[in-house]
């Protein structure tokens, strides 16, 4: 399936394509496929491609490539049926210590959702989640879609400092804080994996399009 896209310049050197749909899963799949196609066959003058939940930002040198040319290429790429279904993509297993000090919001999340903490963990680990985008902070993955049973809004009051490695959920998505950052998502667990290292190649553990399978750490 495909959805319609609107194109707006973000200044003279960037073009933002936004999906006119609430089906973020389909829009994201098209944005990820278009970003991958641009990475495989870059246009001259292209400086950055940032796929997001339901949008794609392309930064370019407007003296090398015109807005019209970039928009025309994006229209073709975004309309192409994305052949890679939800099962395609590299699968990364991430072991998480759920609850307790590592996931201080797990009990409250469970109570809000009318579930037991065990059920929340079971739902969070039930199937792989897609890396829909990297943003907010270096290496921060937006993972989704979460099963509807885990949907809840952000915390009313954000935390000033979320510990690095915290695994969180909010607004139908899951995320992992790569560093100590302010954050408004619900913290349900923590991983020891390092998600971002500027000196590593690549610097981010996860890339858009990857699949993440969370695994509950059973060790005491």
């Amino acid at each position, binding site marked *: 399936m495909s959805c319609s896209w609107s194109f707006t310049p973000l200044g003279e050197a960037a073009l933002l394509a936004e999906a006119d749909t609430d089906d973020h899963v389909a829009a994201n799949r098209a944005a990820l496929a278009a970003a991958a196609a641009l990475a495989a066959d870059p246009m001259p003058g292209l400086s950055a491609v940032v796929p997001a939940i339901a949008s794609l930002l392309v930064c370019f040198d*407007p003296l090398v490539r015109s807005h019209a040319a970039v928009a025309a290429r994006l229209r073709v790429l975004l309309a192409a049926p994305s052949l890679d279904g939800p099962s395609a993509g590299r699968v990364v297993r991430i072991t998480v210590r759920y609850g307790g000090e590592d996931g201080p919001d797990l009990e409250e999340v469970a109570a809000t959702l009318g579930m037991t903490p065990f059920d929340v963990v079971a739902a969070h680990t039930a199937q792989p989640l897609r890396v829909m985008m990297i943003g907010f902070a270096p290496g921060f993955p937006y993972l989704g879609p979460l099963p509807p049973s885990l949907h809840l809004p952000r915390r009313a009051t954000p935390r000033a400092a979320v510990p690095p490695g915290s695994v969180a959920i909010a607004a139908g998505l899951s995320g992992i804080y790569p560093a100590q950052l302010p954050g408004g998502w619900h913290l349900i667990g923590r991983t020891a994996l390092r998600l971002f290292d500027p000196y590593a190649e690549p610097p981010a553990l996860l890339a858009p399009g990857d699949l993440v399978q969370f695994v509950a750490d059973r060790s005491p």
Partner: protein
Amino acid sequence: MITVLAAGPLLTVQDLGRPDARRYGVPAGGAIDRFALAAANRLVGNPPGAAALEITAGGAELAFAGAAIIAITGGDLGAGRAGRPVPCWTAIHVGRGEHIVFAGRSGPWGARAYLAVAGGIAVPPVLGSRATDLAGGFGGLAGRALRPGDHLPVGAVPGATLSLGRHWPAALRPAYGPTPCLRVLPGPHGACFAPDVLAALSALTLQVSATSNRMGYRLTGAQLAYTRPCSLASLGVVPGVIQVPPDGAPILLMADAQTTGGYPVVATVIGPDLPLAAQLLPGDSLRLVPTTLEVALAARRAEALALAHPLDADEGDLLAALAGGN
């Protein structure tokens, strides 16, 4: 080698940043006034993206261990040596052991000066750039703002230095000045606001608030209410984007902005006008003026031509540049 004797409020190593690292969620970063950085580098014979020092507001003092060719561009932050002003936007000679002092801004505008040295600041690149990423704690010198006692390596200068006395004419600089008019293109989320939101914005004089930094300027003087619920999925943003959080006070994203944002984007300042914004300090004012993509592209072409114009040393400048050098 350059030794930092005083840093002022913020002194950092910057180049043209790491745009390609945006895909890892890393801010593009780099000099906030990219024109002034590129001009300073050209004046001393460096590639435009060589690493230089970004001085914020003043208060910095730098000591040169060896003779060097430098150029100071950007805002006038009262650069001087031995109690006398040094010519700005000009390649000058600095003698061994000399100090360059930035007393601070005395005129009605200016926030950031750039000091480029022939050979560039030779800190190791991280993710393809020597720019300091203050939030990420990498790049520049040890990933942090410079402080007194820091030593900065200077790169080797290939061949003869023919740049001394080169001067960058005022007519070929951005239209720096107090209360600059920043041209904006309409943003993708105008439907979140009243239909005449850009016209209304352009009638106002806005101020840069005290809670502003290299990531972004919070602007006061405008209250842009949403006219309908505007909950967006996070999307990619760039420096120049003006996003509006639910409190209605616009935020102008600058060089160190996050790669994505979740607030409606009302407009975007065009690239050629970002150097004007870069020269604003908290308390300074600005205006936003709607423009068209055609005008923005013409401004971009003019900027590229200005940055590439032939540089000649004229005799008067050469004498001024040599004066005080030893």
